[in-house]
């Protein structure tokens, strides 16, 4: 039992409740408290990262119920990595939103914090049904955030997003029911034990349940047949919200990593590596689709939204191959791409605000103000996203390429990933050169100058691509250890033996 594990859930929960009750307080007070909550959450994530770094599993059992009977929170290296990634992204998104995007909705900060709470529960939970609840918590907050801001542009994409996710929730419940009806448990560690013993008729039910789970996680992660809602929804959302949503697809990827490596991992008997042979071609097709979308996008935000889909494809390909080196590379790229995409969303918003009626559309417009600052940020973001040296995206992609073992899979991965990266470079160069270089004479209604908060937030999030290169050694060591830990599912199962408080062991 380790009570620290509840901190990343309780901090945003209490902060969010506070925000819900003080909707009419002065905005400066609400902003200060909200930002303080996010900072505290980052501190707790750092503490958990330091704890998890020793490679052991820590659990928190709600109500002191022995797993598998009660719900547990489980902290391991992967969970800590996801927590810190989310906390850092959230801090800069929050800082950006305080620069003005949070006006017009009294509950913006509350929703933002509840969204963070849902994300943190999803990363920490060790129970499949609790994962469903976490998804619902983060989704209902995200519905509110997606609709944040005036205008009618968000209604239709918002409706599509909500309806799709409600159907996803229904499918999630069906698959949970199917798995429970055979195994009689929903605790992930216990499932890992039980699934390997399933035989006979039960086998096909668990198999169907497992494949339907893959559909649900695929919908969250936006893999190919289920990705078309994403560009519309993300490109219409307010910038800090879109940037925070960069982590939402990663929740799906996290769930795939957790469930399919632990429950349907190498030791799962007849169900070992369920669905992974489907995932690899789908991942490559997703990557290709994302690149096509990026080439055809008409606005900067749509371009970045398609970059989200490109990164999902790039991440899932090595995960589907499942080698330890591939997992480590994918985790490195996961950090890099999440922060970069978040930064690019923020930069696109700043660009849009400086260009008058041209907004972020990729068309010529009169010269914008603060052109040097914004274009450098866009350059850094684009270089990191497309995977050009010397920034972090390049190292992530090189590691992914290196991890593929020789054979047809390597041929497919190398050709699709390299062609895709090349075409992404073209998409970014086209967008950047039209938006920043090809200017026309004309008069702009004086746009609001950049304020410190938004510049710092967008700049810092983009600059993380450089920081990641400087710290590549320690980060790589951590992701290597994480991949090794993920492959050793026996250690995870041992949490079932953890003694509870007040019990002689």
């Amino acid at each position, binding site marked *: 039992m380790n009570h620290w594990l509840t901190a990343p859930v309780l901090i945003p929960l209490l902060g969010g409740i506070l925000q819900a009750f003080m909707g009419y307080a002065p905005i400066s007070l609400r902003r200060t408290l909200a930002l303080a909550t996010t900072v505290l959450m980052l501190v707790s994530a750092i503490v958990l990262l330091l704890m998890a770094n020793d490679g052991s599993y820590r659990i928190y059992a709600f109500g002191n119920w022995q797993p598998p009977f009660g719900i547990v929170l489980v902290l391991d290296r992967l969970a800590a990595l996801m927590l810190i990634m989310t906390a850092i992204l959230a801090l800069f998104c929050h800082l950006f939103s305080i620069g003005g995007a949070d006006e017009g909705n009294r509950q913006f900060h509350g929703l933002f914090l509840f969204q963070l709470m849902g994300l943190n529960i999803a990363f920490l939970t060790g129970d499949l049904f609790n994962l469903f609840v976490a998804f619902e918590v983060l989704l209902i907050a995200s519905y509110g955030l997606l609709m944040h801001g005036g205008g009618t542009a968000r209604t239709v994409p918002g409706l599509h997003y909500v*309806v799709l996710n409600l159907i996803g929730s229904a499918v999630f419940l069906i698959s949970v029911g199917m798995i429970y009806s055979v195994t009689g448990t929903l605790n992930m560690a216990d499932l890992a034990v039980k699934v390997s013993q399933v035989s006979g008729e039960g086998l096909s039910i668990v198999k169907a349940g497992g494949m339907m789970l893959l559909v649900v996680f695929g919908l969250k992660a936006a893999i190919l047949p289920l990705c078309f809602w994403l560009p519309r929804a993300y490109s219409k959302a307010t910038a800090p919200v879109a940037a925070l949503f960069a982590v939402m697809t990663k929740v799906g990827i996290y769930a795939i990593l957790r469930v399919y490596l632990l429950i349907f991992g190498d030791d799962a008997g007849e169900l070992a590596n369920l669905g992974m042979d489907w995932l690899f071609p789908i991942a490559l097709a997703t990557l290709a689709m994302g690149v096509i979308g990026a080439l055809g996008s008409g606005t900067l935000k749509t371009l970045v939204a398609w970059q989200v889909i490109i990164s999902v494809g790039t991440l899932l390909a090595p995960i589907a191959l499942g080698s330890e080196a591939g997992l480590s590379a994918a985790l490195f790229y996961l950090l890099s791409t999440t922060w970069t995409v978040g930064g690019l969303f923020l930069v696109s918003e700043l660009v849009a605000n400086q260009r008058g009626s041209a907004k972020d559309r990729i068309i010529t417009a009169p010269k914008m103000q603060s052109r040097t600052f914004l274009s450098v940020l866009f350059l850094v973001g684009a270089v990191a996203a497309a995977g050009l040296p010397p920034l972090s995206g390049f190292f992530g992609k090189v590691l992914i390429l290196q991890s593929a073992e020789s054979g047809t899979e390597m041929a497919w991965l190398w050709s699709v990933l390299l062609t895709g990266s090349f075409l992404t470079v073209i998409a970014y160069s086209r967008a950047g050169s039209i938006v920043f270089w090809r200017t026309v004479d004309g008069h702009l209604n004086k746009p609001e100058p950049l304020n410190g908060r938004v510049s710092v937030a967008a700049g810092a999030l983009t600059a993380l691509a450089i920081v990641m290169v400087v710290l590549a050694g320690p980060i790589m060591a951590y992701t290597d250890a994480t991949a090794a830990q993920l492959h050793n599912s026996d250690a995870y199962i041992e949490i079932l033996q953890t003694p509870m408080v007040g019990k002689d062991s």
Partner: protein
Amino acid sequence: MELVFALVIGALTSSGVYLILRARTFPVVVGLTLLSYGVNLFLFSSGRLATGQQPIIGTAASYADPLPQALVLTAIVIGFAMTAFVVVLSLRNLADNEDDHVDGKQPYKSPAPEEESEVTGK
């Protein structure tokens, strides 16, 4: 009992799926509701159907599994909240677009820039 139960789940789910595929938001909302009813019943049945049994292991030869009932309760609460939200959102869609088509007024134009007489954006 199993056959009736299965038929009810099947009927609810298939009508739900049919309605979700309609082009107006009202049938879609009703379809989502029916689908969630079907899912709740399905989840309930995952603990096996039993009448007159105790929910405690070991006291009798067979027992009524209490866990799916707890899961269904959670799912009902969440489903109810989501339905309320999607109703409000559909009304907003109706108000914003003066049409309850799921894509707004016309077939929805994807992210490409809206029709624009002047492309320089002065």
